[in-house]
């Protein structure tokens, strides 16, 4: 089966600064692909390219084997790509229902169809069965970190998406909340979605991922099966871009 999402030769610059160099990446249905890399490696930038927030400068973007143009967030959403951004996941000043449907509100006539949206939001949250929230009409600003991630993930799965990308969803969470979110992430993949998880925690990555993609200074050092590598190898890929046979060639000209 071809990967649901495949990127080839992606370049992305901000003005004179090239952040992504010739990046290849793929994500498969029913699998969790961990995207790892040091701070500033370009993980969030890659995710924003996938989500259509940043246009790519060069490279191929294939969805279910077909080349596609994703020039804005709507295009990504229409393909079935849902992204929980590290910094832009939710609007604090809106409530849970408003956030889950933001940009895709249900209408009846001219006005919002609140009952339908509330019902769908409740059903989705209940289906994830992670964390209780007091009311789905609660402002997001009043939620705990774990609840926010749950809402953000619920928002991503509400749309029968094919790919869910999570940018450091557990970075701000405690131990128990992290475990819950990871369990939820694993369950999404088991339900057939392609999940991309960005995380700095090697234990989490090895606990739930099927594949690992390591970015090093804006280049894809390696994308491997989790069962084929050790913690130490992945850490080496993250910190130096190579590990034995794996990783970037010496001659690839990665400047430090």
């Amino acid at each position: 089966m071809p990967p649901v999402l495949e990127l080839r030769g992606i370049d992305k610059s901000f003005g004179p600064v090239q952040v992504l160099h010739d990046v290849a990446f793929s994500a498969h249905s029913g699998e969790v692909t961990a995207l790892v890399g040091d701070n500033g490696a370009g993980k969030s930038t890659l995710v924003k390219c996938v989500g259509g927030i940043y246009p790519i400068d060069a490279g191929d973007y294939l969805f279910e084997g077909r080349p596609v143009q994703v020039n804005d967030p709507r295009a990504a959403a229409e393909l079935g790509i849902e992204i929980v951004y590290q910094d832009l996941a939710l609007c604090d000043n809106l409530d849970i229902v408003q956030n889950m449907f933001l940009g895709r509100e249900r209408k009846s006539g001219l006005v919002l169809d609140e009952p339908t949206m509330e019902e769908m939001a409740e059903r989705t949250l209940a289906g994830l069965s992670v964390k209780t929230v007091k009311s789905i009409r609660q402002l997001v600003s009043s939620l705990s970190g774990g609840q926010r991630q749950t809402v953000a993930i619920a928002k991503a799965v509400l749309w029968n998406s094919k790919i869910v990308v999570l940018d450091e969803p557990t970075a701000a969470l405690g131990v128990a909340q992290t475990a819950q979110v990871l369990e939820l992430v694993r369950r999404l993949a088991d339900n057939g979605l392609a999940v991309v998880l960005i995380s700095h925690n090697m234990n989490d990555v090895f606990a739930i991922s099927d594949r690992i993609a390591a970015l090093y200074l804006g280049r894809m050092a390696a994308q491997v099966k989790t069962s084929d590598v050790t913690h130490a190898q992945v850490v080496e890929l993250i910190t130096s871009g190579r590990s034995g046979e794996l990783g970037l060639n010496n001659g690839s000209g990665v400047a430090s």
Partner: protein
Amino acid sequence: MANATLAADDREPWTSRLRDAGFWAEWAALVGLVVLVVVFQVLNPTFLSTGNIASMLLAAAILIVLAVGQTFVIATAGIDLSIASTMTLGAVVLGQAYSAPWGLPLSCLLAVVAAALAGMVNGVIIAWGRIADFIVTLGMLSAASGLALILADGKPVTIIDPALLALSTGGLGIFGWSFVIAVVVALVAHAVLFHTRFGTHLLATGGAPESARAMGISTQRVKIAVYTISGTLAGLAAILLVARIGAAEPASNTSFLLNSVAAVVLGGVSLFGGRGTIIGPVIGALLLVALVNGLTLLGVSQFYQPLAVGVVVVLAALLTRFQR
């Protein structure tokens, strides 16, 4: 835990809310209005006479319409400093068209269109030119009043029209037609802000523009829309203004600008965008009108009125620091 039942919010008893500063901040305008009404009524029993209430509501109509427009803009974290000059421009267009003579309906339409265009120009420059709204609308403040002076050649035009007269003298009981129009505007605005897709996108644009864009919302279109709405309402206010004073004057009305912002602040709308109500600024407008009217009834010199308004607004702004 499969019990993700989402219980209806269990409300705490209302008495505990009274001890919460956030509660007072949210309802500052209403509390202020009640206090003012009681104080003025005690000091001068004619304050709550039918005649005085009717005249206050009539006086509040223009400010309510402007404050609603200002609310839309401020809810996106912007500000429309040109709202009063745009109203003046609308009034002058009405006056010129009426004396052309193109008849009242067309003249009113032209007034609203001219003001809406001024608003749209604000919005387009702010959204596409990426220039601070403060600067753009300050420019429009000057440009619109200048245009009004040019169009009118600096002279007021008296307009005696039975329909406009009815607008400012007739009504439903103590509710003059102008006030009725203002209430309808507020009701529609409330529905738009809280029960439409556009309203949700507007609040998202104000509260978290980057997140809104990440969800595919065109925050630029929202910006253009709110300034156009603000201009359109300034045009409507222009009609009420001409009806009220029986003339179209090119003179600027700076107190309307100040009071429109003041009403919005009093109404608990966050100047940082993303949160607010329509009822709040409406009550804020009523409070400001009651304040000025009460002081006048008590024989306080007109010179003290701006001072009083200023003090009340800054107090309200201080209270908003306790907003949740």
